[in-house]
C-alpha cells in the first residue's frame, strides 16, 4: 500500500486496471476449474459406464461360448479412436472373476487381478483406484443372463484425462488471459497516459509559473490546439483550457502588478516627501525613500531597523491607538523629527496601513513643514511685538511709577545731604526700603516684558494654564485697571495640566484680554455708556478637558462676522490699529495644542471665548 501510494497517478490507474483484470481472470479461472472438474468427472463416469454397458451387451454370447478372441476384439473396440484417451483398460471376466479378455498389452498392472476378482463383492460399481500410479475410476458392469450374473465388464477410466483436458483448457485460458492482459496493458497504459500526460504537463507548467516564467503558455504549449482537438470535450481538456486562461490572466495581472509596482516605486523614490515603511507591530522602519534619508541625514541602511519613535516625537501610545483596526489614514501635524546631527525638523505625518512584501506595515509619509513653523513663529512674534508696542505707553507708565518713587526717595536723600541735615534713622530705612522695592518692581516688569517678547520655539510641555492667566494679569492688569475696567479672575486651582507652551498660551490669553479691553472701550465710546467694563477669566475642568473662558461686556461680535473673525487679515478696527492677525494666530496656536475655541456673543452686551484643551494626565502617560 505504501508502495502504491508512492506511485504516480499514471501508474496508479495502470496498476489498478491491470490488477483488476488479473483478479477477475483468476477468479473466473478458479470458478471454471471447479465447475469443470466436477462436470467432467461425472461426464467421464457416465461415458465410461455407457461404453462398458455396450460392451457387456455384446460380450454376453462370447462369454457363454468362451470365445476369447472375440472378447479381446470387443475389449479393444472399447478403446477405438479417441475413446482410448478415456478408457485406460477394459477387462471382461467370468462369474468367478477370472479374466477372459483384456486390453493390457504390456503386462497386467499390479493388483488388477485382485481388483477384478473382488469386484463381485463391491457395493458401488464405481471405485477410484491407483493403477501404475495413475488415478483410475474402475467401473464394473455385470453381464447377466436371465437373472444371474455370468460375468462382468470392468472398465478403467483415466482420471488423468480430465487433468489433461483441464490443463489444455488452462493453457487456452492463460493464453487468452495473456492476450487480454497484454491488450489491457497497452490499453490502460494508453488510458493512463491520456489522463496523466496533460496533468503532468500542467504540473510542469505550474512549476514554471512558480518560477515566474509566464511565457510558457505561448512558447511551450504549441500543441494546445492539437491537445484540444484530440481530447475533444473531456474534463482534462476543460482543465487545460481553464489552466491556460488562468495563466494568461495571471500573466496579465502580474504584468499590471509589476507595472504598478514600478510606478509606485518610482513615486516612492522620487516623491518630494520622506516616506517610511514601518512595521505595523514593532514600528521598526523597514524601508525609507531617498528623500527621507536625505532629509534626516541618515543612510538608508541606518534607517532600516530603527524604531520610528526614536526618530519622531510621536507619542507612540496615541499613535498606535489611533488606528486599532481601521484602514483609515491617520494624520498628525507638526511632529518633531530629529536629524542625525541633532537638528529638529517639523513634519506633518500621514500614516496608512498597507501590505508590503506580505507584511502588515504602515506607510508613513512626512511633509517637511519646518520652514512653515519658522514663518509661523515669526508671525506670532510680530503680532506679539505689535501688542507690546500698543502697550508701551502703559508699560512706560508702569515703569515710571517706581522710577518716580525712586526719584522722590533719591531727591529727598539728596536734599538732606545738601542741607547737611542728618536723616532720621527711621526715614532712611524707609526711603532705602522704598527704593529697593521700586527697583524690584521695575525689574520685575522688565523681566516679564522680556519673557513675553522672547521668541518661543514650538514644543509641548505640561503647563498650568492658571499660571499663564496670572502672568498675563501681571503684565497688563494695571493698565486695564487704569482704563476703569475690572479684571476678575475665577481660577479653579485643581485643574489638570495641559500640553502646551507657557509663552504661547500667555500670548493667547494676552491677545484675548486686549481684544476684550478694546471691545469694552469701543462700546463705551459708541454708546457713551458709563457702565463699568468687566473682563472675567475663569478656568475649570472635567475628566478629559480643561476649559478656559473669557467673558467681557464689550461691544460683542456681529453674528454675520462671527465666522470671519478667525480669518487672517480680517479686522474690525480702523486702519493702522490692527493687522487682523490676532485671532487667526490664537486659533492656530490653540489648534497646535489640540485645542478648540468656541465663540458666543450678544452684540452690544459682550462676548465669551471658550478654549478647550485635552487634559494631560501625567500618571497615564507613564
Amino acid at each position, binding site marked *: 500500500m505504501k508502495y502504491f501510494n508512492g506511485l504516480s497517478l499514471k*501508474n496508479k490507474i495502470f496498476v489498478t486496471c491491470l490488477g483488476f483484470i488479473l483478479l477477475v481472470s483468476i477468479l473466473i479461472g478458479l470458478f471454471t476449474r471447479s465447475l469443470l472438474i466436477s462436470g467432467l468427472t461425472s461426464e467421464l463416469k457416465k461415458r465410461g459406464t455407457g461404453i462398458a454397458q455396450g460392451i457387456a451387451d455384446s460380450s454376453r454370447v462370447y462369454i457363454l461360448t468362451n470365445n476369447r478372441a472375440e472378447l479381446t476384439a470387443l475389449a479393444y473396440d472399447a478403446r*477405438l479412436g479417441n475413446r482410448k484417451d478415456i478408457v485406460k483398460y477394459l477387462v471382461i471376466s467370468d462369474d468367478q472373476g477370472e479374466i477372459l479378455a483384456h486390453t493390457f498389452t504390456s*503386462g497386467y498392472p499390479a493388483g488388477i487381478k485382485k481388483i477384478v476378482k473382488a469386484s463381485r463383492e463391491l457395493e458401488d460399481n464405481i471405485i477410484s483406484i491407483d493403477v501404475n500410479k495413475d488415478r483410475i475410476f474402475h467401473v464394473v458392469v455385470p453381464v447377466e443372463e436371465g437373472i444371474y450374473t455370468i460375468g462382468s465388464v470392468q472398465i478403467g477410466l483415466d482420471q488423468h484425462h480430465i487433468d489433461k483436458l483441464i490443463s489444455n483448457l488452462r493453457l487456452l485460458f492463460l493464453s487468452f488471459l495473456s492476450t487480454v492482459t497484454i491488450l489491457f496493458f497497452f490499453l490502460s497504459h494508453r488510458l493512463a497516459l491520456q489522463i496523466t500526460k496533460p496533468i503532468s504537463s500542467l504540473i510542469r507548467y505550474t512549476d514554471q509559473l512558480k518560477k515566474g516564467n509566464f511565457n510558457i503558455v505561448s512558447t511551450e504549449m504549441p500543441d494546445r490546439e492539437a491537445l484540444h482537438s484530440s481530447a475533444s470535450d473531456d474534463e482534462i481538456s476543460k482543465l487545460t483550457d481553464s489552466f491556460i486562461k488562468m495563466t494568461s490572466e495571471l500573466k496579465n495581472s502580474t504584468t499590471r502588478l509589476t507595472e504598478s509596482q514600478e510606478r509606485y516605486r518610482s513615486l516612492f523614490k522620487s516623491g518630494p516627501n520622506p516616506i517610511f515603511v514601518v512595521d505595523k507591530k514593532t514600528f521598526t522602519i523597514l524601508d525609507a525613500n531617498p528623500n527621507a534619508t536625505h532629509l534626516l541625514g541618515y543612510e538608508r541602511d541606518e534607517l532600516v531597523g530603527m524604531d520610528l519613535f526614536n526618530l519622531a516625537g510621536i507619542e507612540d501610545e496615541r499613535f498606535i491607538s489611533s488606528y486599532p483596526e481601521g484602514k483609515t489614514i491617520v494624520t498628525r501635524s507638526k511632529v518633531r523629527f530629529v536629524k542625525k546631527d541633532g537638528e529638529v525638523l517639523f513634519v506633518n505625518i500621514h500614516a496608512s496601513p498597507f501590505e508590503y512584501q506580505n507584511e502588515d506595515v504602515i506607510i508613513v509619509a512626512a511633509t517637511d513643514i519646518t520652514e512653515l513653523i519658522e514663518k509661523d513663529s515669526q508671525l506670532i512674534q510680530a503680532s506679539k511685538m505689535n501688542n507690546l508696542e500698543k502697550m508701551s505707553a502703559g508699560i512706560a507708565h508702569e515703569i515710571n511709577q517706581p522710577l518716580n518713587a525712586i526719584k522722590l526717595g533719591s531727591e529727598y536723600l539728596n536734599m538732606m545731604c545738601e542741607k547737611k541735615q542728618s536723616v532720621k534713622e527711621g526715614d532712611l530705612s524707609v526711603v532705602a526700603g522704598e527704593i529697593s522695592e521700586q527697583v524690584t518692581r521695575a525689574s520685575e516688569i522688565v523681566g516679564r516684558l522680556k519673557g513675553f517678547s522672547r521668541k518661543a520655539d514650538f514644543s509641548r510641555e505640561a503647563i498650568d494654564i492658571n499660571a499663564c492667566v496670572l502672568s498675563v494679569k501681571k503684565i497688563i492688569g494695571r493698565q486695564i485697571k487704569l482704563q476703569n475696567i475690572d479684571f476678575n479672575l475665577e481660577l479653579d486651582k485643581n485643574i489638570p495640566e495641559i500640553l502646551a507652551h507657557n509663552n504661547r498660551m500667555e500670548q493667547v490669553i494676552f491677545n484675548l484680554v486686549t481684544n476684550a479691553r478694546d471691545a469694552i472701550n469701543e462700546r463705551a465710546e459708541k454708546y457713551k455708556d458709563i457702565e463699568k467694563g468687566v473682563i472675567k477669566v475663569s478656568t475649570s475642568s472635567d475628566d478629559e478637558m480643561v476649559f478656559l473662558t473669557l467673558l467681557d461686556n464689550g461691544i460683542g461680535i456681529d453674528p454675520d462676522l462671527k465666522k470671519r473673525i478667525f480669518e487672517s487679515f480680517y479686522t474690525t478696527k480702523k486702519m493702522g490699529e490692527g493687522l487682523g492677525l490676532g485671532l487667526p494666530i490664537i486659533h492656530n496656536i490653540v489648534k497646535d495644542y489640540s485645542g478648540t475655541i468656541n465663540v458666543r456673543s450678544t452684540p452690544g452686551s459682550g462676548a465669551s471665548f471658550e478654549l478647550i484643551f485635552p487634559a494631560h494626565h501625567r500618571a497615564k502617560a507613564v
Partner: protein
Amino acid sequence: MKLDQKATSLFIFLCMLFILLHACSPTPDSTAAKENKTGIKDDEILIGSSLALEGHAGYLGTQMLQGAMAYIQHINSTGGIHSRKITLIAMDDSYDPTQCLYNTQRLIMEKKVFSLFCYVGTPTTVRIVPLINEAKIPLVGMFTGANRLRQPVNRYLINIRASYYQETRAAVKLIVNEMKLDRVAVFYQYDEYGFDGLRGTEIALKRNGLVPVAKGSYIRGTLDVESGFEKIMLSGADAVVMIGTYDSCAKFINLARAKDYNPVFHAVSFVGSKELARRLGDQGEGVIVTQVVPPPNTIGQKEPLPGVKEYIELLSRYYPESKPSFVGLEGYLNARILSEGLERAGRNITREKFIRAIETIHQYDLGILNLLSFGKNDYQGLDNVYYTMIKDGELVLLQ
C-alpha cells in the same frame, strides 16, 4: 521518462509471470521409450507372427512363413545372430482380424516376443496397430501395401514391400505413359484393400490430368463382379486396373474375354498372380501384374537374380516339397531385413536400438535389382515394383 521506464519494467515482469505460469502447467508425460528387452534371452530371440495358415488365405501365410523360415533356419544353423538363435512363434489367424488381434495380444503378453514379424493382410494388420503403438513393439514385414500402414509414418511399422499406391502409380505409368492409353477404368474390391488401390490409381491418373472413366466394385468374398463389369465394359475403357483377389479378377477377365472385350488388364501383386494365371489358363495371356518382388523363377531369364537364387536354394534345402512363390520370396526378404536389423542392433539389443538399427539400413542390396532404404521417418523399404505379364500360363518379367 522515469514513468515509462517503470511501466516497461512492469510489463517485462508480467510477461515473465505469464511465461512462468505456462511453464508450470503440466506438460504431457513424455514417457521415454524404456529400453525394452522383452523377448531377448541369452541364446534366443523370440519373434512372433500371426498370419493365415489355414482357410482361404492359408496359402499366403504358409508360403510366406516357409520363405521366412528358410532364411531363419539358415541363420540359426550358422550360429544365429550375436550367438542368439531366432525363434519364430507363428499363430494362425485365418485372415480374421479378431483372431489376429487376440493372437497378437497373446504373443505380446504371454509369449513375450521381442518383435512382430510377417503379418498377412490389410484388415488384420490394421486391427493390431493400436496394440503395437501401446506396446511399442516393432512389426517387420507385412504382406500388404495398404497406405494406412504407411501414412502417417509410424516407426513401429517397418514396411519392406512397395505400397499399393506405388504399385498403382507404376500401373498408371505403364498404361498412360508407355502404352499411351488414357481411358482407364478401375475394378476394385469393396474393402480397405480395394479403396487403397482405387485412391492410388486416382492419384496417379490425376497427375496425368485424367480420371477413371469407370469404376466397378465387388464385395469381398463374393464373386458378384457382373455389375462392376457391365459399368466398365460400357465405358469402353482401354485399360482396367484391377485391385482384387485372383478369383474375382479371373472371373472378371473371363467375362470380358467372353464378350470379346479386350482392354489391357492390370492387376496388383496382392491378387495372387500365380493362382490367377492358373485359373485363367489361355484367357490369361497378356494380363499384366505388378509385383513387389521379382518373379521367383527363372523363366524368361538366363540367370536368376542373386537374391532370388539364394531363396530358391534355401527353400529347396529346408522345404524341399515347396515351390518358390512371390509370397515366399517376400517372406524370405522380410527375414533377411529382420536379421540385418538384429545384426546391426548388436548383442545388447533393445527394441529401441533395433528400430534405430533398421533406420541405418540404407541402399541395401538384396540382390533383386531393387535397393532397399530406410531412414529416420522412412520406414518404407523397397520403392520399385516389377511388371510381369502372363505368358503361356507363366509370369514373365517385363524388362
